[in-house]
């Protein structure tokens, strides 16, 4: 079940006794609890950590009657009993017993930050009798944008569609994107969040920065490339891994060049079709022989580092200079 469907369903028919949320988008777990509290009679959220507290304190809370009539939502996170690496034991048995006979009119939300559950476990089979909600990272941009819009609406955040797209491009995760809403709102100071605000405040994710950087490298934007290089080093990339990343991208471009069926070529190469499509788009700027030359330049850089002839940083700088030079020559030739 999708998390948004689960919220809608709970709004219409009232919350279920047990929800199991699992997936990489851990920010959605908190959002889900907040939405349940906002839309229903639960007064607040009581949070427990399964790995630290076990299930007993949560069970005690669920099975106790409140003298004041408050029925807080009970949220237990990191329930490792649902994943293969989690240990079974008395806590898992308690949880299984509760899942067999949950307390009516109370809501228990369990979460585990894993996209896959261990289907062989008894607790997993019992949890499937209730509502199991998957929260994976959206793979399609369109889905992600729809979900982000919904999240922004629920948090009363005014944001331009362009800004939302930029936010998704930079974060690549609903959790990280949601996390930026408050900061962006404070920065925009009551105005709708614009794309420039996002550019100013939201850091690029490391992989994305590398991707943009590679794009700049193949376009021969020498000044931008060296400026961005410092940022990449700060993010923890070392020169040799950047040479490898560049080599991979340019090799992909060479493979994508002239391929009649990109999907098939992607399957043959064992890469994601999207990566190959992007590489093909980049490769359109270069003739095949130029791509060959660029691959050779990077292979030489790797060779020079491995034989101890050049320091990795110098080899990377040299390779970037060669790439920039090649790109400039190509541009001049095209003109």
């Amino acid at each position, binding site marked *: 079940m999708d998390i948004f469907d689960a919220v809608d369903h709970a709004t219409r028919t009232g919350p279920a006794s047990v929800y199991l949320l699992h997936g990489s988008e*851990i920010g959605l777990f908190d959002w889900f609890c907040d939405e349940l509290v906002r839309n229903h009679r639960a007064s607040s959220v009581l949070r427990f950590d399964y790995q630290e507290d076990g299930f007993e304190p949560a069970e005690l809370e669920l099975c106790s009657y409140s003298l004041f009539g408050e029925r807080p939502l009970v949220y237990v996170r990191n329930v490792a009993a649902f994943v293969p690496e989690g240990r079974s034991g008395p806590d898992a048995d308690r949880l299984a017993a509760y899942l067999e006979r949950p307390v009516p009119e109370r809501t228990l939300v369990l979460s585990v930050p894993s996209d896959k559950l261990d289907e062989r476990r008894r607790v997993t089979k019992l949890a499937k009798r209730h509502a199991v909600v998957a929260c994976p990272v959206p793979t399609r941009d369109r889905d992600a944008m729809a979900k982000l819009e919904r999240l922004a609406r629920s948090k009363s955040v005014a944001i331009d569609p362009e800004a939302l797209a930029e936010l998704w491009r930079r974060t690549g995760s609903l959790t990280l994107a949601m996390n930026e809403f408050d900061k962006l709102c404070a920065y925009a100071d009551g105005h709708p969040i614009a794309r420039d605000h996002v550019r100013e*405040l939201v850091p690029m994710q490391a992989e994305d920065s590398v991707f943009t950087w590679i794009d700049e490298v193949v376009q021969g934007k020498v000044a931008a490339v060296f400026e961005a290089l410092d940022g990449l080093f700060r993010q923890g990339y070392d020169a040799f891994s950047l040479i490898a990343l560049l080599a991979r991208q340019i090799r992909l471009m060479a493979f994508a060049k002239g391929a009649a069926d990109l999907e098939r070529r992607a399957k043959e190469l064992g890469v994601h079709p999207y990566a190959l499509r992007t590489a093909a788009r980049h490769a359109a700027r270069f003739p095949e022989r130029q791509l060959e030359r660029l691959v050779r330049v990077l292979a030489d850089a790797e060779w020079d580092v491995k034989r101890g002839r050049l320091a990795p940083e110098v080899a990377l700088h040299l390779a970037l200079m060669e790439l*920039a*030079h090649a790109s400039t020559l190509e541009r001049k030739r095209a003109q």
Partner: protein
Amino acid sequence: MAYQALYRAYRPQTFEDLVGQPHVRQTLTNALRSGQLAHAYLFCGPRGTGKTSTAKLLAKAVNCLQPKHGFEPCNACEACTSIQRGSNVDVQEIDAASNRGVDEIRDLRDHVHYLPTMAKKKVYIVDEVHMLTPEAFNALLKTLEEPPPHVLFVLATTEPHRLPATIISRCQRFDFRRIAPEAIVERLRLVAQSQGIEAADSALWRLAEAADGGLRDALALFEQAAAFGDGRIDDATVADVVGSVDIGSLVALVRDLAERSFLSAMERLGRWYASGKDASRIVHDLLQVVRDLFIVKLSQSPDALAGKPVDPYLPVASRDDVTAEWLLAAMRRLGELYTQLRYVEEPRLALEAVLMSLAAERRSREAEGDSSASIQPARTAAAARRRAPSSEQPAQAAADPLAQASGPVSAAPEVAKRAREAREAARPASSRAAAHRKRETLARLYRDRDEALEARLQGTWPDVLASVKAKRVQTHAWLLHGEVALVTPHAVVLSFKSRIHREAVMKPADRAAIEAALAEALGQPVQLFAILQADWEEFAASVAPAIAEEAGSQEASDAAPADVDVVQLAIDLFGADKVTVEDEGDDG
């Protein structure tokens, strides 16, 4: 009052003072004004960019009793002054590098629930938060998730990628950027004025560059330079303090090389040595300057160096004789030297040799009259040599030792021309010499070829194989892949498709077994040579006809020019006892 280091004395005390982080300033002041503060902040960025200062500023702003404009700390009330002094018990600065265990974090967690003693909010500033252990992070997580309303967490780190995603997702993250040199220079100017220090603008720029975007480093260097220069800061003082050579001189050195002013370049180098600079540092700085010159040359934009002024570079970068190819070659040579310096006994000599070769390269390239030709790095040229000749890169194709393998054969004019081109191509002298020797040996053997003997050996080849098999089974297995290529009265040349087989038969024991079998078959002792089949075919196709023709013409007339034998020349020059011929093992 005790003396305070400048970077402490000039810590920003208001948001207006916060240098180089406008995005952080605007967001925090808006949040303070609207009262929508987050419960946890994460400040990331390189050292000296203002993370801890901002955290302290924020602590003052949330606790100030009379904030100006609703967000600016007054720096006069008791809360502000006590936080500034570091005596406010509700604002705690924790060094996570030395308090990294779960016990310390549990202790913190226990204290979080008590209300503040004197301030409005308890502020925990956790510096270097990436140093916490995974267990400590887990312990912190629960507190970060739902802290009491009177608590504000500020986590600061230089390495945000080492934090768990669960921590990052519970904080409002701000990325502090490296401070632009302009902003650092502006701040240094202000400090110089208020401290009564005379500072040259160019010197302040140099300090800002050396600080690499960190204001704290810049102020520390500034303080050091002021002390060294006795209240005056100029380029020379900064160069001494920073320990590097100033950019103007480095660019001037590149200009000297471009102009081939050897003497001027050497004098410059001598002066740097006299002032205590070492070769490694000079090469390091020179590498940066060459890279920057390249960037300026290619991008031709006033903002090419990300805020660093391009003026010192422009006069040299815009020169016609400073080509991008030459700068690439310089980068490579200096880069190689930078790695080799640690093994060199005379670093200065090595540096001078590289600089001279760069200057000389300019001359040789001009002499060629081909300023637009691309200087291929050595390995790229080597790779190009490996490729088959194509119309795209005739120069590289000509450099292929197989294609132009007729070095010693002067009779074929076209081949000789290609050999000349090959000599001009950039490639290691050693491999060129080895390939040359190999061709020469093969050519000599070819001249002595005895076709009758060759036919005899072809006929008895199964016997040779059987004889080798009786001696060494393993050698027989290798030899099965060989073919007789050439036989002379004293030598037998075998060709192999695979390099592995070729090398295997040349091992002493295998070679001895084969030579013994060949001696039995031919009735005389012979020397064994093994080559790759591809090389043999190449040689047979291109060089052998020329040799045959040469042999014919030599018979007709002795006036034909003789082949130049380098080994013979060396023996003639130095004497046979001084010359040792060694095969360098190049795969020919």
